């Protein structure tokens, strides 16, 4: 028995290299295209040659054990890693065919087009109204108070928060519950009319009901925005996404339809991870 275990354990992963595009998406035009991306923190390589395409009408989930690089990779998509002095990114990333590292690319503009929602809700210590209005104001998206009112209302509506806060827009955003704060942050991201929304474990600090509301929101926002979400919760990845990418040790091990990844993964590493055999 021991012998068998040893030989089988030594078996290498025989799955072919993951395609940057899930087979079903071949020939479709991606919203974002990442090719041969490497990320280094000082000497340490956190991401190793990752290529992946992200599509407009799909929610793409990044899953993998802690330290696998999924958050690091997500952050390359709107150049959030630029803010970390020791981080160095190589490779090619496009948004609608434009190189996001091109000198002509305005990073502030890029982050408006590729918005981000973080693990812990981080509303500004300002009123609910100001939390939403801040982005459109600095990006010069409005010319009048009534126009701004409209953006605030529509953003809060799309984030499913309007009915809960419409009578207290002047109250501080930090006075809301955790789930409401997270939806406020999503409303804030939506307010600048982004094309892609990146979410880094948006529900890990929320209770199950608040989580369900965010998941429902993600479902509704799909179609309007390309969404990429990092999550530790595999059930969540299975519930909200149409495409799943499994990362391990800085590599993209497998990328495909969520329904396939969770019922019939091709790579043994993916199978072990999602069935709870990893490590």
């Amino acid at each position, binding site marked *: 028995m021991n012998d*068998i*275990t040893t030989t*089988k*354990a030594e*078996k290498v992963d025989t799955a072919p290299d993951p395609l940057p595009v899930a087979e079903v998406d071949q020939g479709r035009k991606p919203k974002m295209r990442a090719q041969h991306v490497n990320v280094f923190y000082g000497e340490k390589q956190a991401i190793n040659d990752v290529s992946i395409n992200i599509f407009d009408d799909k929610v793409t989930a990044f899953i993998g054990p802690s330290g696998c690089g999924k958050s690091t990779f997500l952050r390359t998509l709107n150049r959030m890693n630029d803010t970390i002095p020791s981080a160095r990114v190589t490779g090619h990333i496009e948004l609608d065919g434009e190189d996001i590292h091109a000198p002509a690319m305005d990073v502030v503009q890029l982050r408006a087009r590729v918005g981000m929602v973080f693990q812990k809700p981080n509303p500004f210590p300002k009123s609910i109204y100001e939390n939403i209005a801040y982005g459109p104001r600095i990006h010069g998206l409005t010319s009048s108070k009534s126009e701004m009112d409209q953006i605030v209302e529509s953003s809060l509506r799309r984030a499913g928060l309007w009915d809960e806060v419409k009578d207290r827009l002047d109250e501080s955003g930090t006075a809301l519950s955790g789930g409401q704060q997270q939806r406020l942050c999503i409303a804030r991201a939506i307010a600048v009319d982004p094309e892609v929304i990146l979410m880094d474990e948006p529900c890990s600090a929320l209770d199950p009901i608040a989580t369900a509301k965010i998941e429902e929101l993600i479902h509704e926002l799909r179609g309007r925005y390309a969404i990429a979400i990092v999550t530790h919760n*595999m*059930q969540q990845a*299975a519930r909200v996404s149409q495409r799943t990418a499994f990362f391990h040790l800085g590599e993209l091990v497998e990328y495909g339809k969520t329904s396939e990844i*969770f*019922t*019939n*993964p091709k790579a*043994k590493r*993916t*199978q*072990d991870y*999602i*069935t*709870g*055999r*990893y*490590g």
Partner: protein
Amino acid sequence: MNEETTGHTLKAFDDDLNRLRALISQMGGLAEHAIREAIRCLQTRDLDAAKEVIANDAKLDALEIETEKRAIQVIALRAPMAGDLRDVVAALKISAVVERIGDYAKNIAKRIPKLEASRDIEPLSLMPEMARIATEMVHDVLNAFVERDAEAAMRVYERDQAVDDFYNSIFRTLLTHMMENQHNIGQAAHLLFIAKNIERVGDHATNIAEMVYYAATGEHLPDRIAKVEEGEADN
């Protein structure tokens, strides 16, 4: 993908899955025994033992319910994924099929008293061999499930033809008997139903083979066979 050697990080999950497999094995053992016993009673006209076969079917029914309960618990409490999920769903489906096989044994046993007074007619001598192959298929395919052995499941799938051949031969012989002498019709009809029941056991074993193949590989066996045949046509 028959290469899962490492257990779950959560050991209790492995215990749950192993318990499900053990239940299926136990059901399989009972069903095989029931079919063999029914055929033995048929040959020896052992009415008491036939009654026991009928009574024992309740055990299989109870085990099917137990399997269903445990499978639903695993789904609810462990949220199995990928190969684990396919295994649990296969266990659910297989238990229903094995229960059905038990019903066939019971049905055969019920016919035995009706044959008591009759003299032997020829096809009776073919039945034990036919039943042996069919119960072996059940045995092997359930082993394949427990071992997650897709290749073994496929070999079972291919053996069903032998059972079908037996059935066709018995069918023709019984038909001849009926035509020769109408006094044979009653007995021949019972024997025909018994042969049909055994033939169905073989069919069910092939159905289980498909389920085992899918659970172990994530691919459907008929698709694979179609692919192979297509490939052959190309060559």
